[in-house]
């Protein structure tokens, strides 16, 4: 019975050890309303100086991306678009060139389903506005005319820092991956000031590094239809979670929903999916892939994921059924009272 007495001693010591250990959780959480986006930032174990610096960095990067890449307000991107339409060589601003280069790569790997060169089509549907359009949608004639000469990213030639456009209909709109690009830059800069544990969630899309103290960061993925959280997952040391959904920007015209994710093959809002969630390391790639896979829809997403090297995908179709890669299925946990119908793809 000596064993029992010893265990009493241990048990009496235990509460003391616990209270010495984790009584001061050092989570700092803040919401920043930056131009057009709500940023939810969580920092674990950061010093007051790092917190102040981190908030400054986030504000600065988002403001910079917003002014540099605005697709319908006068600024650097509009000027680049004007000169691309002219067709002669010109010097590309250094803050835009890396986006064009990365945009070309992602355009190729997505088989053209991620196409930041079709800004004119986005405008045609009325989405180049701070207020949502009320319709009517563009006529079939207008769409056909655009598709007859559909510009892709191959219509931009690059020679060093010089670029030129070869299709006058080309108009860049980085809406489908500017946020991811900004989040990557923010994480890089947070690391450079010594922050090891953080989540940067820009308007619902996020990249997380490190951990929440002793445990992994936990993420909830919102239902594309209805309310609340559909599923959750715990993140690794450095992962991005991006979702493209038809509920983000849309209008209803004569009872029909028109959303902002356009299919370059039809010139119209992509049909078949309600949302696509991608987990990947780099945020910019996750962002572009979520768009491309949404456009590909329930039938084509697996091929596009393979081409783009994206291993973790969850697609919710317009009937509420869930389609997943095995790698995503292995870690996702449904949070709904009734589990949706799930189909797991055979190949990653």
């Amino acid at each position, binding site marked *: *019975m000596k064993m*029992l*007495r010893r*265990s*009493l001693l241990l*048990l*009496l010591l*235990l*509460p003391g050890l*616990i209270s010495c250990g984790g009584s001061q*959780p050092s*989570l700092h*959480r803040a*919401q*920043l*309303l930056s131009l*057009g*986006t*709500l940023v*939810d930032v*969580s920092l674990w174990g950061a010093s007051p100086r790092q917190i102040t610096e981190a908030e400054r960095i986030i504000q600065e990067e988002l403001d910079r991306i917003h002014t540099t890449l605005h697709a319908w307000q006068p600024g650097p991107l509009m000027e680049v678009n004007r000169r691309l339409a002219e067709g002669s060589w010109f010097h590309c601003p250094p803050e835009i060139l890396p986006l064009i280069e990365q945009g070309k790569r992602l355009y190729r790997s997505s088989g053209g389903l991620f196409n930041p060169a079709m800004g004119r089509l986005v405008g045609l549907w009325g989405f180049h506005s701070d*207020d*949502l359009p009320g319709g009517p949608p563009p006529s079939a004639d207008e769409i056909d005319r655009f598709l007859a000469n559909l510009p892709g990213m191959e219509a931009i030639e690059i020679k060093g820092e010089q670029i030129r456009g070869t299709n006058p209909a080309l108009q860049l709109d980085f809406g489908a991956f500017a946020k991811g690009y900004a989040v990557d830059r923010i994480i890089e800069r947070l690391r450079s000031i010594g922050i090891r544990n953080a*989540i940067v*969630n820009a*308007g*619902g*899309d*996020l990249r*997380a590094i490190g951990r*929440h103290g002793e445990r992994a*960061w*936990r*993420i*909830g*993925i*919102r239902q594309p239809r*209805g*309310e*609340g*959280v559909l599923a*959750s997952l715990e993140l690794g040391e450095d992962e991005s*979670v*991006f*979702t493209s*959904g038809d*509920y*983000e*920007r*849309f209008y209803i015209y004569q009872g029909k929903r028109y959303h902002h994710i356009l299919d370059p093959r039809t010139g119209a809002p992509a049909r078949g999916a309600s949302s696509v*969630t991608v987990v990947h390391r780099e945020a910019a790639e996750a962002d572009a892939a979520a768009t491309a896979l949404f456009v590909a829809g329930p039938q084509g997403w697996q091929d596009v994921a393979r081409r783009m090297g994206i291993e973790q995908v969850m697609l919710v179709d317009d009937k509420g059924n869930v389609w997943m890669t095995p790698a995503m299925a292995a870690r996702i946990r449904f949070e709904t009272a009734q589990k949706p119908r799930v189909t797991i793809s055979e190949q990653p």
Partner: protein
Amino acid sequence: MNTPLVTRGDWLVLGASLLLLAWLYATLWSSGGETGGQLHILVDGRELPPISLQQERTLAIDGSIGTSTLRIENGRVRFLSSPCPGQQCVHTGWLSHGGEFAACLPNRIALQIGGDEGRFDTINF
């Protein structure tokens, strides 16, 4: 000399251990932060004083483009109405757990439920 296999002291140890276990369970597990207690409201970047979620009420908050209405009941909160065109804030529905948040960007109003130990650290959408 024969001593009983289990002495009075041993029973005391057992009893104390069980009490301790009950105390540990109560303090470390049962208050796992399933529901948040405080609502934080951010209006145009400024935080209003935190509001308890335990008291049922409807709040009108003036934002950049008009008035948003919030409803608090049973420890949860939601946007009831907002002057924005997209109505994403209203569609977000009820927030009840620490860490959950919702925002009306056009009206520059953001809500977050306080509490470090909510079910989720952040929400993807």
